[in-house]
């Protein structure tokens, strides 16, 4: 059983009349990758800002536990708890006029690193971001993907126990995105707790142990990806084209004049096998399993990308 390392209790934050976060409560277990999934404007960044102490909640509380037993509990505003957290903000947060090494050195020093320890961590972070050969180039000369990687590396230079990645793949090419995924999986293997916000459901599905789905500042559902799909994803969709119109059997879905069909099923493969044994000929066949997109659709009535 993993112990909780971050706890958010009934967080509420508004800007004037606009409610950004509305009574949000969740806990993040030590060593897990926790996803915050929601469309733009759902309140993910505001939530992260409250978790790291950048924003003060109007009400509610954030606590961080330093020990496994949960006795050493404190606010993210306290320096000793801040040292446990690293953040890679959605907006690139780097000094373009400094080199990658200088950026890492500077932020490492802010967290109290110095001497050989600092050098060692900077070298590790450069290697992590696969930027060792470009370490003395100014960040301003990097590609978007390289900047994203160094943005994450800076968050890790002081060896935090918790890393918050706010939409780390925004504006990144597929190759760099895959590299970032590799980096995160590397962190997971080291047992680092990751809080990952995204509006790409396939990222949450690939990387996260548990996912909290947010919309309009509210928590709609929280579970493992499998659990969410089972609870809220609905049935699989079977579609395709038939060889001939079925005459003497009961077909589960509609078939149009072009012999194209579509039906939903909890056991799609069994149902297809049964139809086939009854003489139904399938020219093409497609089975679409429910995913987080369909979970979000079920929960909100609209798509994640609306």
């Amino acid at each position, binding site marked *: 059983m993993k112990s909780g390392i971050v706890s958010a209790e009934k967080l509420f934050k508004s800007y004037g009349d606009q409610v950004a976060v509305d009574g949000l409560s969740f806990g993040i277990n030590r060593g897990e990758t926790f996803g915050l999934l929601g469309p733009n404007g759902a309140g993910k960044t505001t939530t992260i800002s409250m978790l790291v102490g950048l924003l003060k909640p109007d009400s509610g509380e954030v606590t961080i536990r330093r020990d496994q037993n949960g006795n050493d509990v404190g606010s993210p505003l306290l320096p000793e708890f*801040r040292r446990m957290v690293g953040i890679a903000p959605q907006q690139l*947060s780097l000094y373009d006029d400094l080199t990658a090494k200088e950026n890492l050195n500077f*932020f490492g020093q*802010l*967290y109290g690193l110095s001497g050989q320890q600092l050098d060692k961590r900077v070298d590790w972070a450069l290697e992590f971001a696969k930027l060792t050969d470009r370490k003395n180039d100014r960040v301003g000369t990097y590609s978007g993907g390289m900047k994203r990687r160094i943005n994450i590396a800076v968050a890790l230079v002081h060896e935090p126990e918790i890393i918050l990645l706010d939409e780390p793949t925004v504006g990144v090419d597929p190759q760099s995105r895959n590299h970032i995924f590799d980096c995160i999986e590397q962190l997971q293997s080291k047992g680092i707790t990751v809080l990952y916000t995204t509006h790409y459901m396939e990222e949450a599905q690939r990387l996260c142990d548990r996912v909290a789905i947010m919309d309009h500042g509210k928590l709609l559902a929280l579970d493992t990806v499998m659990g969410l799909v089972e609870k809220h994803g609905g049935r699989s969709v079977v579609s395709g084209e038939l060889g001939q119109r079925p005459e003497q059997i009961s077909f589960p879905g509609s078939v149009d004049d072009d012999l194209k069909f579509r039906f939903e099923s909890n056991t799609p493969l069994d149902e297809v096998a049964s139809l086939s044994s009854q003489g139904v000929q399938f020219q093409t066949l497609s089975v679409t399993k429910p995913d987080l997109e369909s979970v979000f659709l079920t929960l909100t009535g609209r798509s994640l990308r609306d």
Partner: protein
Amino acid sequence: MRIFSMAMKDLKVLFRDKMGAFFIIGFPILMGLFFGLVMGGEPGSGGSAKMKVAVVDNDQSEFSKQFVESLQANESVTIETDDLDSAKNSVRTGSRVAVLVIEPGFGKTAGLFWETPPTIKIGVDQSRTAESAMLQGYVMESIGQLASVRLQDVTELTGFVNDAQKDLAEDTEISMANRMVVSAFLTSMESMATNFGKLQTNEELSSGAGQLGGGGGFDFVNLEPMNVNREVDPNSVGGQLKKLKSRWDISFPQAIMWGVLSCVAGFSISIARERSMGTMTRLQVAPVSKLEILLGKALACFITVIFVAIMMTGLGMLLGMKPDSIPMLVIATTSVAICFVGIMMVMSLLGKTEQSVSGAGWAVNMVMAMLGGCMIPVMFMPGFMQQLSYISPIRWAILSLEGAIWREFSIGEMFLPCSILLLVGVVGLAIGTTMLSRDE
């Protein structure tokens, strides 16, 4: 340690921005040189400021040549002989200040007070009347030296007395009383001329050649050097300018302040820039207090201001500026740095974006600069503007720097401007910290 790290990072970022570095290093040098060259006519500005005068000698006598030599000996004047047309043309086109035309017959009467004064025509550049007035003084001085030489010529003086006595004897219309008076005067002059001869003989015999008095057997007069310049009010522009040793004395304090203002402008946008770059998020998430963030910026700004002051002082000294007191200059510079670091703190929080902070910052800077004497030295401003200038910290900053460079301030005199600067700095730091701590 973290404050130092932040300061070093800010300095790196600042100096890697070529435009920012230019405004902090290049701009004040340009301003210093510009204002220094504009003030080229100030006292002690060196040999290059000698006034050029053309002389047309139409007399070509021994005494006209002596007169020209006497003018040439004057360190403030460069004499160039020329023909009349060329000389007039050079004054008209501004390459010379004036032309002096020595008319024929100059040598016969110049320096002889009993003769009709000789005529010297002078043509001046109307735009340089002050220098022309000085030239007239130098001409009178040279004529006086010529008179001194001719008065000591015994043969000439005796000849004059003999001729006069002869004329007196031949004049039948003069009354008896007047004849006796004039005769007595001429006898006295003859006696004086004879004694000049003795004096010259004694001088030749003794080693004190060239002395008018204090020699061997005859004391004609005991001459002592005396400053006959008119006393000048030390608070007047003229009085203040008298203290200047170099044209750079005024321009470099101004230039230092332009550099300081560039530092203030450069660093005041750094907090807004941290926001726009997103790095403020990292700073605020790190175990660093807002006060430490501000102090890091303050330290970077302080170091840069001190650097600019040292650089400009060094450059000024290379060009001829001679600070009266280096310790006073250190005190003044430190006070200036603290003051403008405080001002930078407040300015940096005047807006959320780089554009708004930069715009507001330069607007405030320009008003302070105009009022404080960065553009026109305060001493040249009208009275009410001089009073108004006291509200600008730049006025106090320049005053403290000038106090150390050429105003010969004592510690007591330095206390007022420096304490005002320090007060502004501390208040600025306090306001800046309060504003940032309220900022979310």
